């Protein structure tokens, strides 16, 4: 897959970071505003996909990217599971216990473990959507 023109590349360079930041914003404010891990994760994956499309397959080592994304995805899921398991050993000893202090309603750092779940779900969704995209691209590249 070849890259696109300089105009597209330059615009992407400017936009991709902003899109990524917006995705991160949605993830981090998941417990306060609409959105959360999944929605923000999809936006963040959009930034990666935009870069890959604009700069072409040659710019990135696609296979290596895919391996990295797979590892990130799995590790993020494992961390979510471990976070939920921690509840089994603390306080009321129940699975999925919200064991951190809740804080004040409306503050960024509040709602106990929920922001943490959001962040790791966001990472997981980002990498898995990116893997889906990469799998299609790699399939197409190998086909031609």
């Amino acid at each position, binding site marked *: 897959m070849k890259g696109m023109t300089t105009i597209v590349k330059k615009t992407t360079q400017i936009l991709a970071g902003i899109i990524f930041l917006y995705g991160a914003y949605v993830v981090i404010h998941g417990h306060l505003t609409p959105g959360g891990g999944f929605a923000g994760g999809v936006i963040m994956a959009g930034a990666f996909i935009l870069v890959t499309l604009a700069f072409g397959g040659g710019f990135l080592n696609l296979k290596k990217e895919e391996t990295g994304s797979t590892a990130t995805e799995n590790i993020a*899921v494992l961390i979510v*599971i471990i976070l*939920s398991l921690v509840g*089994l050993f603390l306080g009321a000893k*129940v699975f*999925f*216990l919200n064991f951190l202090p809740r804080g004040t309603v409306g503050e960024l750092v509040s709602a106990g473990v929920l922001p943490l779940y959001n962040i790791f779900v966001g990472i997981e969704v980002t990498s898995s959507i990116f893997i889906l995209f990469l799998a299609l691209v790699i399939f197409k590249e190998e086909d031609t």
Partner: protein
Amino acid sequence: MNPIIPMLVIVPLASAFLIMVLGKLIRDLPGYFTSAVFLVLLITSYYAWMHNGNGITVYKVGGWEAVNKIPIGIYMVLDGLSVIMLCLISTLGFLSAVYSLSYMKRYTGEEYYYALLCLLVAGMNGVVLSGDLFNIFVFLEISVIASYALVAFGVEKNELEASFKYQVLGGIASLLILFGIGLIYWKAKTLNIADIREAFKAGYDGTYYTFVQMLILCGFGVKAAIMPFHAWLPDAHSSAPSPISAMLSGVFIKAVGIYVILRLFFSMFVISEQIAFVITALGTLSMVFGVFLAIGQWDIKRLLAYHSISQMGYVIMSAGIGMILLSRGTRPDVALLAITGGLYHLINHAAFKGLLFLNAGALEYRLGTRDLKEMGGLASEMPITAGTSFVASMSISGIPPFNGFFSKLIIVIACIRGRFYLLAFLAILVSIITLASFLKFQRYAFYNKTNAGKDLTGKEVATPMVFSMIVLGMLCLLMSLLAIPSVRESLLKPAVDVLMDAGNCMSKIIGM
């Protein structure tokens, strides 16, 4: 609260992702790791079975207690019925994982296979344990999507076609189920199964209620491959790698199909005679037509897959008879017998159908073909495969002293005592045709020498595969012990009680 309950879901789920991380680094790890994890699950679920007895254990995820006796959190429920399903899932899961150790050597990407197998088991455990409708749907999707990928694992033309067909039908089924759940939530304002029962008991609109029941029955009917919805099963079960066929036929259609149908129609909906008739009719239909479709097959795994439809028909039919009798309120002793027979046959089917698929896998592994016409005279070359498949064939056809005989006997006795003479006759007829088709399988695969025109490189398969087959063969024999009334009383009674006395059990859950 008992931490075992969530662990049965978390452990396979976490190991699926752990395998994907570690499998890249250590090559032989995934297979042994999966087997070890499933062994732990096996021990845990049998421990739970021994210690549960007649009790119902509820686990409230996140520690959300009920407010004014209205459940608000996610409930996981362990009772007599779900604990038996857990034991089935983990037994077959462990044996399939061990069998895969040598069977899957021919495939690439082993870590994906084992990760998907763990996901499949995690999803099924979740379906069996969850106490509310929406979580049943979520876990159902986890296991079903893993099974789509596993069916297509060979990535050849047939596998992909089968998987695609399965995905389309499975997708429609999931849509129907979700629609049904939405409609229930609209009226009942709750998703907890016990709470929905309370809401429906207070009063409901008849037409609306029947519509919802039909949606749910069709949706889970596809997953359980009851007759008009069976089209995906023969393709999907014959294309998957053999240990996966054993899992799919042995426990998957039971855990996500029949278990959920039993649970919802006995425990959640108020049993009505019409729906009980529909269920009995569907069960009879799949019992009779499944076997007629099976007898003409020459592909071993397709033959076995059609027999799964037929044998599941027995289970559905006897559960339906139980429902009819319960709704009439007469002869509760016969209803008890029918439901016991159905559950007993469900357990037996897991053992002998799992074993038959593993046998078919062994034949395919050695000969590279699934066509019965190309085999012959393998009894001397593969004695263990031949012996175990003989045991399984006799079990499924209902020959004493193997387990299939006793469960079919109980079903037939229940039919006769409940005055369903036609159904009793059909059950016996289907059993005879089953015997005919398995004699055909035995003769062409193991005894018929004349077809051995070409060089057959039959040799006994590797130790892990032999181990799984022998264990299942022994289980086929051992489970006939359940026919002894006192043993049956102590082992199956808790499960049957959950279905017979659903109202009481459900109000216990609400009270916890």
